[in-house]
């Protein structure tokens, strides 16, 4: 093309500088606008990153953690959680008594406990709710939480069909009697922390569908009737769930927040960006790669709370390579857990040398595993595989994720370097991985277990021989006996002693390799007050409040 005349070049230059000027003045003029978190703090609305879209908000149907957080704002149990210790405190029941043998609990419901539509909360609401969750046709995935109740298991499995035989009875409108199979010392913790024990408003449930089938529409915002500190006002799938203060709540005067907006941000990176952009007071997670940066530059935002969970590897004890206990022990002793939490996970996790996280309801396993390379080599040689020679190939199986892969690779290297054992890696998409694991079609498989309630039983009972969560092919009659006996022992010391013996068997036999105890790593705005770190990551929202930063 021909050269442009000089005046045209000049015009373009002028235009360019004009454009630049506009941009700069826009930048300067805009300044830093007030962020959403600041606006929300003034209005006492907590903006909460909740990770996933809830399956539903029916406490008898759902099974997830994100669902729990939301439902805990809408419903309350007879027993509630202390915001600091999570110990049982009066909820909808103002007091309760336990019979001397520990098998019958009587709850006295508050006279001012009301549903959000103004109806009084009655003992009958609980009787009907418990019948509902235990009715097989509802297909509740978490109904087993109620199994300490007399005949609950038999009724849930369809072995008895008369609901009158369930250990639950309304003595009068405000008195509820709960009869157990066995004295269950963690009952109140379980009732306080788990939504399966909370009641639903049956007239509402009956109005919007079959109360004993899935797919009921009572949980829509326009239909929802709850009895918690907040009511559901809006639910836009994959976008936002809004709850606002419930004026009919018995303790409404002490609820400081006006509401919570739950944002189900699936992508952990998007969630972190939203936090930085001032759209969230709290994230559900933090990408692993960002932990160090926050630790260095913004430690006041970073939270790393101990969490009631264990990251471990299942060992298929029926596999030729792992049949011999000595091989399993050798593999265990050759893992440097401290190195894994220091260099791979980096989120303040603690190396796990037992299955039950230490200090669970005051229980810490006496038996502790150890990192012992010399011992490991000796054990492997004794088993007939000196320096790993002759050992059938070992495959580490995990569900597809960067973090699981990094851990598997580290352990693979440790086994190679420390024992001469060759391991390969296999990753599978979540549901395929679940299928492989439950059919014990693996050699070594990554797993995690989060306690349902703060008691060692929630961990140890998973390895009962007949348990669906065992998935290792391992079983021990003595272990089963101890766990079952502990389940029916009311005295805490005696019960813990039985569980200690059981855990000792588990850690001697090693159908699993504990790796680390979980932590919850997340970001929390300093505006959030009355927020206490705890083992279950439960933060009863009725106590939480926001303090806007001073201008």
């Amino acid at each position, binding site marked *: 093309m021909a050269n442009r005349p000089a005046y045209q070049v000049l015009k373009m230059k002028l235009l360019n500088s004009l454009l630049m000027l506009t941009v700069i003045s826009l930048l300067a003029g*805009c300044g830093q606008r007030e962020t959403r978190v600041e606006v929300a703090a003034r209005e006492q609305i907590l903006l909460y990153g909740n990770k996933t879209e809830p399956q539903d908000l029916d406490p008898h149907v759902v099974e997830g953690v994100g669902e729990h957080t939301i439902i805990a704002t809408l419903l309350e149990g007879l027993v509630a959680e202390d915001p600091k210790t999570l110990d049982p405190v009066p909820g909808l029941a103002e007091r309760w008594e336990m019979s001397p043998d520990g098998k019958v609990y009587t709850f006295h419901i508050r006279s001012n406990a009301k549903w959000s539509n103004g109806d009084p909360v009655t003992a009958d609401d609980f009787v009907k709710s418990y019948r509902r969750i235990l009715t097989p046709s509802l297909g509740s995935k978490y109904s087993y939480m109620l199994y300490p109740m007399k005949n609950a298991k038999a009724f849930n499995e369809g072995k008895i069909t008369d609901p009158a035989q369930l250990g639950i009875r309304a003595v009068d409108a405000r008195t509820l009697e709960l009869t157990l199979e066995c004295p269950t010392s963690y009952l109140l913790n379980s009732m306080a922390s788990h939504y399966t024990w909370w009641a639903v408003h049956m007239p509402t449930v009956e109005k919007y569908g079959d109360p004993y089938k899935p797919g009921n529409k009572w949980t829509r915002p326009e239909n929802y009737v709850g009895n918690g500190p907040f009511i559901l006002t809006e639910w836009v*799938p994959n*976008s936002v769930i809004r709850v606002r203060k419930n004026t009919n709540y018995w303790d409404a005067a002490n609820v400081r927040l006006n509401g919570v907006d739950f944002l189900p*941000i699936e992508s952990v990176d998007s969630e972190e960006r939203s936090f930085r952009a001032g759209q969230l007071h709290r994230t559900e997670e933090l990408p692993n790669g960002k932990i160090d940066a926050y630790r260095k530059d913004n430690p006041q935002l970073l939270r790393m709370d101990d969490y009631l969970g264990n990251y471990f590897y299942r060992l298929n004890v029926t596999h030729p390579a792992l049949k011999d206990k000595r091989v399993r022990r050798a593999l265990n002793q050759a893992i440097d857990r401290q190195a894994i939490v220091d260099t791979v996970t980096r989120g303040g996790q603690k190396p796990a040398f037992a299955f039950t996280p230490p200090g669970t309801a005051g229980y810490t396993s006496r038996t502790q595993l150890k990192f012992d390379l010399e011992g490991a080599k000796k054990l492997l040689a004794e088993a007939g595989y000196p320096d790993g020679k002759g050992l059938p190939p070992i495959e580490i199986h995990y569900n597809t994720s960067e973090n699981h892969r990094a851990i598997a690779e580290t352990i693979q290297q440790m086994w190679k370097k420390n024992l001469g054992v060759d391991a390969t890696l296999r990753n599978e998409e979540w549901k395929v991985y*679940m*299928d492989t694991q439950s059919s014990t079609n693996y050699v070594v498989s990554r797993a995690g277990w989060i306690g349902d309630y703060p008691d060692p039983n929630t961990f140890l009972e998973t390895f009962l021989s007949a348990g669906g969560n065992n998935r290792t092919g391992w079983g021990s009659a003595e272990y089963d006996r101890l766990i079952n006996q502990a389940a029916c022992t009311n005295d805490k010391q005696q019960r813990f002693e039985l569980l200690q013996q059981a855990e000792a068997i588990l850690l001697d036999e090693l159908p699993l390799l504990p790796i680390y105890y979980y932590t919850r790593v997340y970001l929390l705005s300093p505006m959030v007050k009355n927020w206490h770190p705890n083992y279950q990551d439960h933060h009863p929202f009725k106590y939480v409040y926001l303090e806007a930063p001073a201008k």
Partner: protein
Amino acid sequence: MFRFIVARLLQTIPVLFVVATLTFFMVRVMPGGPFDSERALAPEIKHELEAYYGFDKPVAQQYLIYLGRLLHGDLGPSTKFANRSVNEMIAATFPVSLQLGGMALGLALLLGITAGVIAALRPNSSLDYSASGISMMGICLPTFVLGPLLVFAFALKLRWVNASGWFDATDRILPTVTLGIAYAAYVARLTRGGMLEILSQDFIRTARAKGASEVRIISRHALRGGLLPVISYLGPAAAGILTGSFVIETIFQIPGLGRHFVTSTFNRDSSMITGIVVFYALLIVFFNLVVDILQIWFNPKLKF
């Protein structure tokens, strides 16, 4: 024309049937089911759930029930989201995808055609090179890079807009730009090619000789033919924008259909998977038909 449209509509029936059937059986052979989870489910409960969703019946019977429902436009209940049907899910989320896709496509056409025409008017000039260069960048920059970059600049540094969400009007800007840019780049290249070819033809020279203004030549004579490649690209582009917005929806936390499409497979939510696939198939068939009609209208060489 009418016969053409009717014939095309009739052709869609076997297409949809094959899509519906294949998806149904592919979902059934996938390992892992909707009720597999970290916590084992008691066999009795699993049986109840399977009975409720009809998974306990023989596959052939399930297939017939599924086809029967489909004929009535009922896509079935979601196994993951217990209180919602697939129809409701699509009704709630598709308008969002449509809005995002529509705006992105509009932006793509506006930017792409303008850049393409300018480039074609001054081929091999610095203007042409910069337009081509920028569009090449647009094609090469994947949305999962461009999206976070834009968020970093405009949400985190300048604080002009939010980093995620779909609430305010300003929440629409970044996702639209991110999604639109990649398509704008293609449109620009196609427009440039089409226009260059047309501008060298005799009838343009005739128009110039008659003294028609440059604006009139472009708008009256050249664009109609020059945009033909763009028109034929519109069908796949519209389908791609609507079905492929998963990444954008995830980056910007947008409640669209794309996310359900992808997550339903992770959840093994069979009716959700088959429902969305059939719905998308219908959509693609529709867009292709529209594009065919547009092509006939734009191209005097094609006549019925």
